[in-house]
């Protein structure tokens, strides 16, 4: 299932985050990519707007990296169309490369060189020269809080410092669109917070648009104006977090117990207004718009089956639940 942001009236301003304009920065229709028999991206349609932070929330191997690789010109799509800043990704790749910056999940750094040399190398390739180049390098070092370490070899940096430098390289060309591929993987909480603050600052100060791929729902909830639920190369739904929760998330009943069989799951599924039932890690997850009404009925069936409940909980739903409902699996499966 693909969902278009076209649900949003283009004459209306979107007010998530307060600075999103109605100008499209990305528009993709039927975007597809396969590697041999493996279909990595299946006819994806989506749009995003200037100043927007769009989260691509999906598990590892969902095809997130392939999708942003096509938008950044690393991969050529097999089918479909996409524009970035109004430029066709097949025809105007060079113009797109000037306005887009990909911050890859793998650290695109030369460990043998200093932080300054790394920045200078990429600045040169962005065509920056003279005073402007120096200013941008200085700005990037400031933003990454690496000024003191500018002349140290990157190989001696901590994981968090490398991640910050990786991100800093991405802002050298002041891109209109940043594609951040799992930028917080393997970093300490302090560096993670720093990266979050940097992204927020980039959006507020430079009105950058950001595609943020992650498999951490907390990051998507915290940072993103809208979130695309993405799995197996397909956008299952795309909307702001509250709308997604409203549409797909209900209070959830969690019952921890052993020996749950298919007949029990089927019985619960067949109850009125039960949206989904999943049994994962010896825990039964039940979503229903009438959860309180259903709870008594569920417990009665469990008692009849003679099963022993070791833990019982009712909680507010989150993006993890939305993902579970839409895909039948957890984000980190």
């Amino acid at each position: 299932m693909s969902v278009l942001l076209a649900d949003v009236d283009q004459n209306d301003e979107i007010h998530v985050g307060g600075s999103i304009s109605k100008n499209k920065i990305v528009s993709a229709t039927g975007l597809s990519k396969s590697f041999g028999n493996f279909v990595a991206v299946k006819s994806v349609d989506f749009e995003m707007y200037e100043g927007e932070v769009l989260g691509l929330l999906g598990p590892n191997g969902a095809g997130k990296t392939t999708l942003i690789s096509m938008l950044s010109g690393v991969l050529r799509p097999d089918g479909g169309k996409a524009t970035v800043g109004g430029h066709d990704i097949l025809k105007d790749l060079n113009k797109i490369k000037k306005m887009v910056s990909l911050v890859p999940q793998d650290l695109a750094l030369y460990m043998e060189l200093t932080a300054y040399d790394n920045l200078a190398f990429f600045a040169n390739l962005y065509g920056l020269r003279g005073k402007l180049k120096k200013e941008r390098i200085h700005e990037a070092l400031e933003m990454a809080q690496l000024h003191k370490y500018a002349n140290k070899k990157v190989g001696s940096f901590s994981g968090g410092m490398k991640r910050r430098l990786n991100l800093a390289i991405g802002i050298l060309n002041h891109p209109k669109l940043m594609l951040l591929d799992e930028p917080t993987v393997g970093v300490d909480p302090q560096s993670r917070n720093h990266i979050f603050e940097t992204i927020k600052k980039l959006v507020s100060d430079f009105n950058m648009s950001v595609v943020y791929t992650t498999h951490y729902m907390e990051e998507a909830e915290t940072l993103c104006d809208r979130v695309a639920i993405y799995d197996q190369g397909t956008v299952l739904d795309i909307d702001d977090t509250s709308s997604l929760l409203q549409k797909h998330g209900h209070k959830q009943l969690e019952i921890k117990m052993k020996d749950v069989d298919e007949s029990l799951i089927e019985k619960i599924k067949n109850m009125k207004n039960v949206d989904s039932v999943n049994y994962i890690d010896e825990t039964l997850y039940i979503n229903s718009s009438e959860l309180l009404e259903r709870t008594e009925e569920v417990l009665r069936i469990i008692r009849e089956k003679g099963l022993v409940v070791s833990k019982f909980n009712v909680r507010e739903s989150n993006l993890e639940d939305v993902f579970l409902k839409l895909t039948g699996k957890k984000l980190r499966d």
Partner: protein
Amino acid sequence: MNIWNMAAKDLRIFLRDIPGLVYLILTPVIIIAIASFALSGMFTEGEVEQFSIPIVVEDQGEVTDELLSVLKETPILKLIDTYESDDGKESLMTRKEAQRLVVDKKAAIIIPKGFSENVKNGENAELIVLTDPVDRVIPGVVTDVLSQYTSKLSMANVVNSVGVTAVQSIVSKTQELNGVTIDPTNEIATIGEQSEHFTANPPVQVKVEKMETSDKARETTPFESNVPGYAVMFVLLGTTAAATSLLEERERGTLRKLQTLPISRLSILGGKMLSNFLTALFQMFVLFLVGHFAFGMWVGNSILGLITLIVATAFAATGLAMLIASVCKTRAQASGVSLLIVLSMSALGGSWWPLYIVPEWLQTVAHVTLTAWSMSAFNNLLIYGEGMASILPSISVLFGMGVVFLFLSVRMFRFN
């Protein structure tokens, strides 16, 4: 400009890699020095490396004395006629001790008792050479030296025997027919003198004339062939290793980042080529400078030719290295493939030994390698002292190979 930016980055990394630099320069210098000093005897007419050969002298006599003096005057042999016995005394070499020493010395000579007597009497006489079957060179040399001497002795004996027999037969028949007594002593003595004269001055001889194929005023040293030989080999090893940094960029993700930048893929590959080419040039020039100033290698009569040849070789090596990096999918794969190709080319193309010593068909096959073209041109310049004109075909082929290799590498490299 982007090509230069790419190359400058690689060169900066290269210059900060001190162990890598040491490997690039010091290793070939050490190998060149070892190979050249080890083979110095094959090139110079001065001191010759001698083979120490145990000799057991069981015979006493004129022929044995003469044989010993001949062997002592043979420059390549150093005779060991005594050994230190268990009680610390120096004793004459025995068969038993000679047999023990053959393992180390590879050959030993035994002059058996009665040798002189048998030679004098024109009877069968034998010299014995003990050999170690694992070696062919030293036993071959010893056998050749002895064979030359025994051939002379045999010829003298045969001439004496045939002459004396003929004279005695004639004398006997004449005495019988004419009833007179004839004394053939003088004729027999003359036959002896003549046979000795012709043994010392054989009527058929081999005359060796040295052709003026190289600069007369200069003596060739091993460095004139070893410096270019090992320089070409190590430049190939160096460039293939450097080219695999392209695969490293793919493996560590920087290549993906580079593809998102507003530069062409040709600039990315061009930068790699340029840095490899400059590294190869640097390595070759340093090795030739070390060869010249540290080892006294002659640089030929055409400096322009030498520089052009170095540039052409570095260019072709860069092309080959880029092609290997383009065809291989991983660095481990590229390392294995490049080692196989470079070592094969070095053996086949004349880096380790002169191409003219291999079979003719192999010399023809060898010219599919850039090493063969490069080495034949270096030999023309540094050994025969020829000029630019003699190496133009090789230079053209090397540049041609470089262009073809680079074209193929651009076509075949997969960025993702």
